[in-house]
């Protein structure tokens, strides 16, 4: 830490939020390009070279549109949901170690904090769907909450595996431990990989991404919880969803892929590479797979993922005692 914790904390947070917002803007460009290529289209090409200025054009357009609050909606809650979702989506970033030193809050309960914020993402979605007073929005919101809280359990249990192995809830310590002992995705053989796959799958469901995007199944529910949102309010929701995906990718890299640890390259480069690989995988899955049905989704979670997570945890515990 620098001389004054207040100043360094403020500077760190400002830099982090700015970088994340910029990254989110161009990630939307990237996703549209990937989507285009996967569907034999070009994606954005007109604004700037390779359509690179498309996010700026989108933001300016959204800023100039009329923000409509439906007449039967609850005006306060309707306006309150987007800022809340943005704060929760970006808030996790504060505890993620991007390099050994570039780390905002090295909380001794970092894992718990990250998972708590992820779990709280159900609140803004539910507030948005309830405040909208729209039937599609409410159905989407109910599905979102049911899915979010169900998948939180295997997610929390999967995140426990690195905690058991490293004996710490601090994300900084978990990465240090992996730096010395090897990435958790590689050891214990099978268990680490299983926990990583489980965490990644549940993160897709928590982030409301295909194949788990049942809450906003556009073919049946218009746009789910965000049906009534227009202009910049909708943009904030969309940006938060991207932000959530990116930060969950970063969290998965931290917990299982060794975070900034890696040979030759500087730590930040490794962190960016690992996060990008995971995010590209999420995008790839999104444009490849179909959507599950609601009952299939619940059955998958409770009948397979929860017992699997408990089993992984018990095996990881045995491993820790047998080979300390």
């Amino acid at each position, binding site marked *: 830490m620098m001389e004054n914790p207040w100043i360094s904390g403020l500077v760190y947070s400002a830099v982090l939020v700015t970088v994340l917002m910029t990254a989110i803007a161009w990630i939307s460009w990237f996703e549209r390009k990937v989507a285009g290529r996967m569907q034999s289209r070009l994606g954005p090409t007109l604004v700037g070279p390779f359509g690179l200025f498309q996010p700026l054009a989108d933001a300016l357009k959204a800023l100039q549109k009329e923000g409509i609050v439906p007449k039967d909606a609850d005006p306060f809650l309707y306006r309150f949901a987007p800022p809340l979702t943005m704060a929760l989506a970006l808030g996790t970033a504060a505890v993620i170690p991007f390099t050994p030193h570039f780390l905002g809050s090295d909380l001794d309960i970092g894992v718990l904090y990250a998972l708590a914020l992820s779990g709280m993402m159900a609140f803004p979605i539910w507030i948005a769907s309830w405040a*909208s007073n729209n039937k599609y929005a409410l159905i989407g919101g109910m599905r979102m909450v049911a899915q979010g809280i169900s998948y939180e359990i295997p997610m929390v249990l999967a995140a426990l595996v690195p905690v058991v192995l490293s004996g710490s809830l601090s994300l900084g310590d978990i990465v240090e431990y992996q730096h010395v002992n090897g990435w958790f995705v590689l050891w214990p053989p099978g268990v680490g990989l299983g926990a990583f796959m489980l965490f990644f799958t549940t993160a897709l469901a928590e982030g409301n991404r295909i194949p788990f995007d049942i809450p906003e199944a556009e073919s049946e529910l218009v746009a789910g919880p965000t049906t009534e949102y227009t202009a910049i309010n909708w943009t904030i929701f969309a940006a938060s969803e991207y932000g959530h995906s990116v930060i969950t990718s970063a969290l998965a890299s931290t917990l299982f892929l060794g975070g900034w640890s890696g040979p030759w390259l500087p730590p930040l480069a490794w962190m960016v590479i690992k996060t990008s690989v995971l995010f590209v995988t999420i995008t790839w899955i999104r444009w490849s797979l179909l959507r599950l049905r609601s009952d299939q989704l619940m059955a998958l979670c409770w009948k397979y993922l929860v017992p699997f997570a408990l089993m992984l945890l018990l095996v990881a515990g045995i491993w820790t005692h047998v080979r300390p």
Partner: protein
Amino acid sequence: MESPLTPYLPMAVVLLLAGVMAIAIPLIAGLLGPKSMTTAKSEAFEGGNAPMGSARQRFAVKFYVVAILFIVFDVEAVFLYPWAVNFRALGWFGYGTMAVFASTLVVALAYVWKKGALDWES
């Protein structure tokens, strides 16, 4: 200057900055955007027809079952966290204790499963 709460400062600032930014941007948009509200525009979207009644009605009881299951298992997960941190210090005794605790929840899961609470359509 170094209080135990100091590490929490960047975390709070990130939360605050993101929230304030997301409040400020719609305010700017409110100044920039046109304002031409009409009745049709302000109605909830319901496939193009006029909305019928309030959306806030009773919904299926199965969502409550999910909520109850969540509480049961999430409390379990929260209990597992302090155990996981002190895992090495607790040794095999701690492992055995928690295995018994986890197995009672496996029994609960099996019961819920057999009762059909995990099947969406029943």
